């Protein structure tokens, strides 16, 4: 399984350590508290789902970890380094809600972009891109350009690109948000498999409860105004997440637990099939 091997699976330090983080947008007077008093530790290889309604700061938290924004106060460490250093060292791969592919590049060239920017020799990055195109099931489309692909295919290219440098940490901001339900479930299965095989830690932002439960080892529930973590729920459904899990009672039980945590009160099961 060398193709999935990460840089360092047995990292002793946690993948992400967030301590007392606060993020305020805007100036005094019109300031908006996007995050308040957030503490979160993500172990190496752990899969975390961040869930919550719009405006709860889950995307903001992910952007802080990615060093796309700086916290107003508090510290963020990624593999024991500052978030900025981790970004400069390319310790994480990232995928956004929009695929964000460069339209003039083919599938393979899009996947190889980070490798190309970091001076990986041509032959090596071509081989890696080829390998990843197969992994996300786009082998036949390797020379297509983004406008010739469906939204789901574009998103798969973006995920392949995020994996290109074998990161020990994957940051994903609603990567399946724009996909139809069927594609979405297939992508979730793929991601569960990839995450398991690569041993990378994953921070997965979503507002779909089943998606969060199906994928994560731990679901972090957030609430808005001000954005904060209200609850953290373990999802002890095992290392591997086979398709059949979606039909199991344990799965529904965790879904209900997350829903209750989100709504802050017990929810009747009547609506469940």
């Amino acid at each position, binding site marked *: 399984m060398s193709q999935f091997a990460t840089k360092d699976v047995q990292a002793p330090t946690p993948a992400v350590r967030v301590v007392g983080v606060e993020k305020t947008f805007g100036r005094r007077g019109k300031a908006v508290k996007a995050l308040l008093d957030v503490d979160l530790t993500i172990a190496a290889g752990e899969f975390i789902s961040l869930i919550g309604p719009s405006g709860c700061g889950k995307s903001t938290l992910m952007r802080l970890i990615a060093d*796309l924004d700086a916290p107003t106060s508090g510290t963020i460490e990624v593999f024991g380094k500052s978030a900025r250093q981790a*970004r*400069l060292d390319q310790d994480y791969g*990232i995928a956004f809600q929009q695929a*964000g592919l460069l*339209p003039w590049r083919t599938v393979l060239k899009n996947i190889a*972009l*980070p490798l190309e920017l970091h001076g990986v020799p041509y032959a090596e990055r071509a081989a890696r891109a080829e390998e990843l195109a197969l992994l996300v099931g786009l082998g036949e489309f390797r020379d297509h350009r983004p*406008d010739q692909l469906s939204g789901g295919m574009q998103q798969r290219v973006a995920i392949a690109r995020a994996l290109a440098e074998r990161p020990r940490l994957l940051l994903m901001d609603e990567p399946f948000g724009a*996909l139809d339900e069927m594609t979405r479930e297939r992508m979730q299965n793929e991601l569960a498999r990839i995450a398991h095989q690569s041993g990378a830690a994953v921070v997965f932002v979503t507002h779909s409860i089943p998606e969060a439960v199906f994928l994560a080892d731990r679901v972090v529930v957030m609430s808005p105004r001000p954005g904060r973590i209200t609850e953290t729920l373990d999802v002890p459904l095992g290392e591997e997440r086979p398709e059949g899990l979606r039909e199991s009672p344990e799965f529904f039980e965790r879904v209900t637990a997350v829903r209750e945590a989100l709504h802050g009160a017990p929810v009747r099961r009547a609506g469940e099939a």
Partner: protein
Amino acid sequence: MRRTLLWTYGALGLVAVVLLWEGYKAIGPADGVVVGAVEGERGSGFRILPRTNDRSMPHLWAMVARLFAVTSPGDPTPMWLSVLQAALVTLGIAALGLAIGLVIGSLLALVMQSWRIAEWGVLPWVILSQTIPLIAFAPVMNSIGVQIDKTIMPWPQWLSVAIIASYLAFFPIAVGALRGLQAPERAHLELMRVYAAGGFTTLRKLRIPAAVPYVLPALRLAAANAVIGAIVAEVSMSMPGGIGRMIIGLASQASTDPPAPWSPIFGAVAIGLIAAGSVGLLGVILRNYRRGEATA
């Protein structure tokens, strides 16, 4: 299929011009229509329709036939060959002007994109520069060119003409390239930040490719401007050898040889078509940079 249709429309347009010209010539009064003329006073009143006699409006076939006659009684070269030679001179100057304009325009755009303050400081001057009339600027450029010490640097007159052409050409390129360099969406810029790519890498891998769809139309405008600039500068600097001078020279013979001035005009049209066609070809070569990403 769509291609054939476009060519058909193009041909129809040409046919329409021919029909208008010859049609009006056939039905219009030979002396045109003048309103408000005072009896016995020459040149009074307003001519609202032009004369249709052979001196004012030669037949199209006369114009074409003139291309295959000798240039002038003293010059046995066929007219089309003289026009071709002059057109090549002007085309070369226009191409040089376009190249200079492309370099200067792109550099200005790069500077303006890199420093916000440069955009505020430079862009108004770039726009202002285009309000100076070409015929005012051309003689100034000419006298500067004449004053340059020929022993230090040879400065032929055609170089001054090319500078004037570039003066018209750089403007659309500067504005178009600036828009293009600023075009990448936030998501793409953040991606480059995620990859810890520096300003130069971002420029090379993201901004420049993203600017192509903006630069191509600007280039088409610039090419047309360069041709116009070259022709007008040739005229106002009295530079011999180019199509501009030929238009003026033959226009003065129009009373004795009415179809003659049309020969260099055809030549000028051909230069314009070649300029626009070259940019179109460039667009075909760069077609992969003109794709839009389909939204998910």
